[in-house]
């Protein structure tokens, strides 16, 4: 078992992401995630003082669009795909009723 992640950490992240996990799932993912974190530790061990931090792999910055209106989706068509709609709005279950 890795020092970087515990079964309890995985259970917490799963809960936050609304993922239902069996006990066996938790064991399996804890092991897999621990291996990934071990790999990052290998990278950490390298001397990277001359390497710029990278926030994403594409050599691009400032990708933008002009502030111009584009066609929107048809409301009735979209609402027809929703499980429930009322007064041209999406209807959802009571918010605090959802068990976090």
């Amino acid at each position: 078992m890795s020092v970087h992640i515990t079964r309890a950490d995985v259970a917490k992240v799963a809960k936050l992401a609304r993922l239902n996990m069996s006990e066996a799932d938790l064991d399996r993912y804890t092991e897999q995630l621990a291996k990934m974190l071990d790999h990052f530790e290998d990278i950490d061990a390298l001397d990277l003082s001359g390497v710029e931090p990278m926030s994403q792999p594409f050599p691009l910055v400032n990708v933008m669009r002009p502030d111009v209106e584009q066609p929107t989706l048809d409301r009735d068509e979209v609402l027809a795909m929703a499980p429930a709609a009322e007064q041209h709005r999406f209807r959802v279950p009571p918010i605090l009723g959802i068990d976090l």
Partner: protein
Amino acid sequence: MSEQIVPGWELVVGLEVHVELATRTKLFSGSPNRFGDDANVHIDPVTLGLPGALPVLNEHAVELAMRVGLALNCRIEPCTFHRKNYFYPDMPKAYQISQYDQPLNLDGFLDLPDGTRIGVERAHLEEDTGKSTHVGGDGRIHGSEGSLIDFNRAGVPLVEIVSRPDIRTVDQAKDYVNELRAILVAIEASDAKMEEGSMRVDANVSVRRPGEPLGTRCEIKNVNSVRSLGRAIEYEARRQVDLLEAGDRIRQETRHWNESDGRTHTLRVKEDADDYRYFLEPDLVPLVPDREWIERVRSAMPVLPAARRAALGAFLGVPADSAAVWTVVDRGQDAYVLASVDAGGVGERVLVYVQQAFAEAGPNPAVPADGLARLTVMERSGELTATQAKDVLAAMLETASADPAAIARSKGYEAMDTSAIAVAVDEAIAGEPAAWGKYCAGEEKAAGALVGRVMKATKGQADGKVVTALLQERRTANG
């Protein structure tokens, strides 16, 4: 408002202000950014979080956010976007795109009218959420049977402006919001209407004994006006002092201001809800404003309201933070006032007329500035009484006229010469012997009956100031 809400305790407030940017379209998609339209008409795959939809940053939103940063004296920095993950039906993607450890604008300040400098920690870009209406259970979340969601607002560009906890009084908190609102409107970044929700203020409130470290803070939400902000902070400070004086501790929590009972209430949010698992948004690349871009935005910045108030106040010789100066600058009519005074207008009268009569006129009133100047001169010279001048101005507004003299003539407002007024004054004295007696005995109020009689006799055309002067003259002669 007193400096200290409760003697012996110091109030510490930081404000988080969300403002919707005045763009045509949303932050990451081309759906319109427009308030007040029918529900769910501004929707597209990005707004709805449909699979495969990709966000593309709105350049104008970035420029408006940069204007906010410049107006608040921030550094504009290379920055990134993060996903703030949470499950709530007002955000169908299950995350909000925001900025986290690398915001666009950092480390600025805002000066209050009283000279207090309030630090601004950051001002970052993010997207707004949809709007939920809770059905059943009195329209509140608690006990509701469900919610109806309108995604028109989801994805509308926001700037969140986070102050440092530098605010020490309720008045400073209100001044901060008023000054910030004036700035946002002046730089055309937002219409900043608290009542429509395009400007939303959350207050972090704590109390401490002077000189001690910061106390535990509570965040107050749902404040819908500057007045409510003041009431909410004051209530919350008293609540905290009461707890501390009773030997209790403050729990760090989010509290909801209830306008009707004038209290704050705990919002029961589970602890985990604050664990947003921020991570870099993989669908967006970094935003790196270069010097040239920043300078281009800076060079297009207008003069800010505080400087305009100072200039107008100094020019007219009135306090820069007087209500009239605030109002006129707020409406963008200060250039008009200056033009009218330049055209020979009587400064203090021009200011009053613009403040009182031009509420709907906008920055370029229909009445030419030299026309208003001529009106104030006619009033000052006694050709028109104050009442007549008001009446002439109303007609000038209706017809966009620059010629008050012509309007005055057409209304039969001819200046009465002093000798004609003197005759009416003498008649009034003869007709109101009781009032005259009291007036001569030093009862100033008694002049009302005399002036009234003169006005009636002259059909309101006598200049009130001349009448008063003549009465005083006669009293002195009589005494």
